[in-house]
């Protein structure tokens, strides 16, 4: 048969459990604005019953655990989308910066090409006029300068991105170290059956941050997590983190290594992926197109010069310095080779008044001298390509932001703290606590009755 003491213990278990539940609610309310916090719920279970044949008595309630509410699939999707977002952010930033050099209204290559051809057109009206000849040389110098500035800007931008790569790798290393430490703490707590909800929240937040930097695969194992890049390079395994390192290649650009292996080409997502894509693909492609244009123009005009005669009646010498073999670096090294305006080979027959050769030079404006396209059309193609790439990356980023926002809203609806819900829980737990306290008071009164029976 049950005793008053047993009833008192049962009531006390209620008090303890409700107190724990109230503590959980208090913690939820306190963390309502904490980024990455997952709502916690108390898990209450009936205590093991006491069997006194033929009767079975309940022995109260136990607060078995405090669980954090999470959706692992949703979190994986958020991490994946965060990677895309990080990659597109880096790409959009790089392309927008590159685009500025091609779309400015003053001093851009397109304007310089037009001005140069216009100066040749003017010279054809009076081929012996030294001021018009000087005008052509000035325009040619401006054209060379426009190529130099744009190419140098791209080179500088590539160097800046390369430095960002190093910083990003350093951030990745810091995060993987912290995640490994949290893995250890979570494993230790869960190993002894305790709740590690707060640490798991912190780890999830750090994994989100890591996802924005690099492509991460999350592989859950017993009480811990393993993180790898998309191509399987280990970043974190349990309580151990694997540091990434950078080393310059022969061209001076940083390559990324993991445990001695070059993994640069395997990183395709996250901010690091976007930076590598801009540094190794997008900007070099633009540089290559600029070099093609510069080399094509220089070669065509040098050939045209060689076909005419200058004011002294001599065969024309190159107008531009010959571009490097293969064209690489032609834009940054483009320079006018002559300084004396009399050396412009405007004449086609050696006579001073002839404008045959300068007209031939002007005709290059409408000839397919750059891979079958006119210089202006080829340059427009470059501007169009960089503009389209930038607009598309921007649109991808906007779309990714919308999807990420939706996923975060979903996570908030599942894992976020609702103050209304917590207020209701607070009242519910408070009433239960008050009821248990009332039971204790009643048992106390009954015990007093028993004691009084003995003393009277």
């Amino acid at each position, binding site marked *: 048969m049950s005793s008053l003491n047993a009833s008192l213990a049962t009531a006390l278990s209620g008090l303890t459990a409700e107190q724990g539940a109230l503590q959980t609610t208090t913690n939820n309310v306190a963390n309502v604005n904490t980024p990455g916090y997952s709502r916690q719920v108390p898990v209450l279970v009936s205590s093991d019953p006491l069997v006194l044949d033929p009767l079975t008595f309940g022995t109260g309630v136990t607060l078995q655990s405090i669980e954090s509410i999470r959706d692992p699939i949703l979190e994986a999707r958020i991490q994946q989308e965060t990677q895309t977002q990080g990659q597109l952010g880096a790409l959009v930033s790089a392309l927008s910066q590159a685009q500025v050099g091609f779309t400015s209204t003053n001093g851009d290559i397109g304007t310089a090409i037009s001005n140069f051809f216009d100066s040749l057109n003017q010279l054809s009206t009076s081929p012996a006029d030294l001021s018009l000849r000087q005008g052509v040389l000035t325009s040619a110098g401006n054209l060379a300068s426009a190529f130099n500035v744009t190419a140098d800007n791209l080179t500088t931008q590539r160097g800046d991105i390369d430095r960002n790569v190093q910083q990003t790798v350093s951030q990745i290393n810091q995060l993987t170290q912290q995640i490994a430490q949290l893995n250890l703490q979570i494993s230790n707590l869960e190993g002894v059956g305790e709740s590690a909800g707060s640490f798991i929240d912190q780890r999830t937040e750090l994994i989100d941050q890591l996802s924005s930097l690099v492509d991460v695969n999350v592989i859950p194992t017993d009480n811990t997590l393993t993180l790898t890049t998309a191509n399987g390079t280990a970043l974190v395994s349990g309580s151990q983190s694997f540091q990434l390192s950078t080393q310059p290649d022969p061209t001076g650009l940083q390559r990324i290594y993991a445990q001695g292996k070059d993994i640069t080409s395997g990183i395709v997502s996250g901010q690091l992926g976007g930076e590598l894509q801009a540094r190794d693909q997008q900007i070099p492609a633009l540089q290559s197109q600029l070099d093609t244009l510069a080399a094509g123009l220089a070669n065509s005009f040098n050939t045209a010069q060689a076909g005419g005669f200058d004011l002294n009646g001599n065969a024309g010498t190159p107008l531009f310095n010959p571009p490097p073999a293969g064209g690489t670096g032609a834009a940054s090294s483009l320079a006018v080779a002559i300084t004396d305006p009399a050396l412009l080979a405007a004449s086609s027959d050696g006579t001073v008044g002839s404008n045959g050769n300068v007209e031939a030079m002007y005709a290059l404006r409408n000839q397919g001298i750059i891979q079958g396209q006119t210089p202006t059309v080829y340059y427009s193609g470059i501007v169009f390509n960089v503009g389209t790439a930038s*607009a*598309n990356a*921007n*649109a*991808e980023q*906007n*779309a990714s932001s*919308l*999807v990420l926002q*939706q996923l975060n809203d979903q996570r908030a609806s599942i894992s976020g703290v609702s103050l209304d819900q917590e207020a209701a829980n607070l009242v519910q737990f408070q009433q239960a606590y008050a009821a248990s306290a009332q039971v204790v008071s009643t048992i106390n009164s009954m015990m007093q009755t028993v004691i009084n029976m003995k003393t009277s």
Partner: protein
Amino acid sequence: MTSNLALGSPNVPSPPVFARAHVLQASAALLAELKASFGDSQRALLRLDLAGIEHGTRDQWRLQRALQILWGVTEGGQDEGLRSGVDIGPDRADAAALRAAVLEVLQLGRVQAVLLARAQRSLRMISHRVAGPHANYQAPASPASATPAGNCMGPQETI
């Protein structure tokens, strides 16, 4: 689909001639409607609400046609000034605002195209799951032939 938004002048049969100011006003109203429609479509795409996507696409197609007709009937036919926002005379400010609205709509169109591609991938994944492990994933023998039962690939698709 809406991603293929062409803002050029279509071939339209001998339309009436409107005053430039009225065209600007009407264009601004249509573009505002188009922006709102893109907003609705984006929400539908994020929810994978197929009926909403279809409705939005039809709406955008209607508005696109309306803009094409409107822009084809300004004084002087194809009005490059209207679209570029330059050389528009006394309506310069309105035209610049219109130009900004056009660019905004184009950007929304690009975003829509990306979201459509994502939705298509998601739906294809769902169709693969629904088809089950015994589905035939090989492309049909000829593009003209109908997709056989259990084959969840489109006629042009291969894995």
